[in-house]
């Protein structure tokens, strides 16, 4: 159920919302298989967050000599401010499933696995979740398998966790007191009923503002980053260029 925002594609809209989560003077990392967060962070780096430090896997030059181990160690030492994760399932409590659909012992679908996200979800100060589609199959009451846990108040070693969720229909914020998502904004033209119909848990509150989309200047700046995306995401970059026309 795509929504249409004049002047940009859905992926660019999501990337712009990602950019809004990036703060200047912080350490921000983007992992593998994340073209939309990468696009958003490149936009932030070229606009309001020029003084940050960036570990952007898939952006060509990466300032590491030990691969993902260096990213994981950075996070465990408490030096990673912002990271981005997604999931095959994301549940009401903010847990992520990157492991399997169905029972672990007899899965319907075996997924690639967590790749450090069980640790990163705790040790990164802010984790922004992104979903490239919004349906009740992704947004579930309870994950079939909790790869990364969001809500574990009894465990003392928690530096951070989920803060925001960006989807093609809406944005949500994570309420750490309740340990649940709260609807924060609906994208232009999306009704509460539509968003609720595509979400497998109750959304609240009902009345929220409309999500701010990118200005024409922001869209131009996003598009100026496409050559960098082409290095590691040639298929994504080509498809984006085709949609832009």
């Amino acid at each position, binding site marked *: 159920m795509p929504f249409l925002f004049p002047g940009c594609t859905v992926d660019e809209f999501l990337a712009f919302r990602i950019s809004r989560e990036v703060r200047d003077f912080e350490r921000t990392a983007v992992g593998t298989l994340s073209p939309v967060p990468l696009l958003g962070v490149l936009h932030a780096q070229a606009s309001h967050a020029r003084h940050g430090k960036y570990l952007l896997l898939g952006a060509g030059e990466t300032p590491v000599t030990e691969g993902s181990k260096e990213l994981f160690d950075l996070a*465990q030492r408490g030096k990673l401010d912002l990271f981005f994760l997604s999931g095959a399932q994301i549940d009401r409590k903010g847990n992520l499933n990157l492991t399997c659909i169905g029972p*672990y012992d007899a899965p319907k679908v075996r997924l690639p696995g967590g790749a450090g996200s069980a*640790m990163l979800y*705790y040790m990164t100060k802010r984790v922004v979740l992104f979903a490239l589609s919004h349906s009740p199959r992704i947004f579930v009451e309870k994950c079939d398998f909790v790869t990364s846990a969001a*809500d574990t108040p009894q465990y003392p*070693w928690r530096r951070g966790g989920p803060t925001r969720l960006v989807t093609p229909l809406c944005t949500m914020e994570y309420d750490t007191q309740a340990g649940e998502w709260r609807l924060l904004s609906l994208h232009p033209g999306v009704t509460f009923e539509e968003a609720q119909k595509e979400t497998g848990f109750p959304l609240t509150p009902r009345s929220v503002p409309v999500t701010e989309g990118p200005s024409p200047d922001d869209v131009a700046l996003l598009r100026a980053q496409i050559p960098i995306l082409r290095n590691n995401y040639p298929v994504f970059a080509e498809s984006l260029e085709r949609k832009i026309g």
Partner: protein
Amino acid sequence: MLGFAGSDYEKVRADFRRLADPYTGKEIFVVPAIVPDWAAIHAIRGDENGNAICSARESDRLAVLAAKRTVVTVEEIVPADAFVARPGEIFLSALHIDLVVVAPRGAHPGACVNAYGIDRAHVEKYLAASKTAEGFSSYLAEYVMGMTEERYRAATSAAEVA
């Protein structure tokens, strides 16, 4: 390992143990080290002394340091006095390497840092072929079984431009 608690890995991985950190008293997880019998990686260059320079972006070097024995394939051998790691590359001492094999384009159809990119057409062909057992068999017959290095290179020569 920090974090991690409350995930379902705790239910399915009995070898991941939760215990008190003897230094801070805080609860942490410990996981057993992975010790591969062999690591096989493709590096960018080797020198006459058996040292290698490999990608710094992947975990190739980590795999080598963890394994009992290691074979490293390299694009080329260069003189030791010209053996310098460039950005995106890292030095890997001969101390950790058991065998060096010269294998130009040895990462094909994958990429080799600072040498060549992914052969997308070939990867897409493999992905399509490997969807069925028959397709996979015919892929193996065409590119792998009974192939010599020279014939493989000739069969995939379009990748030279990548």
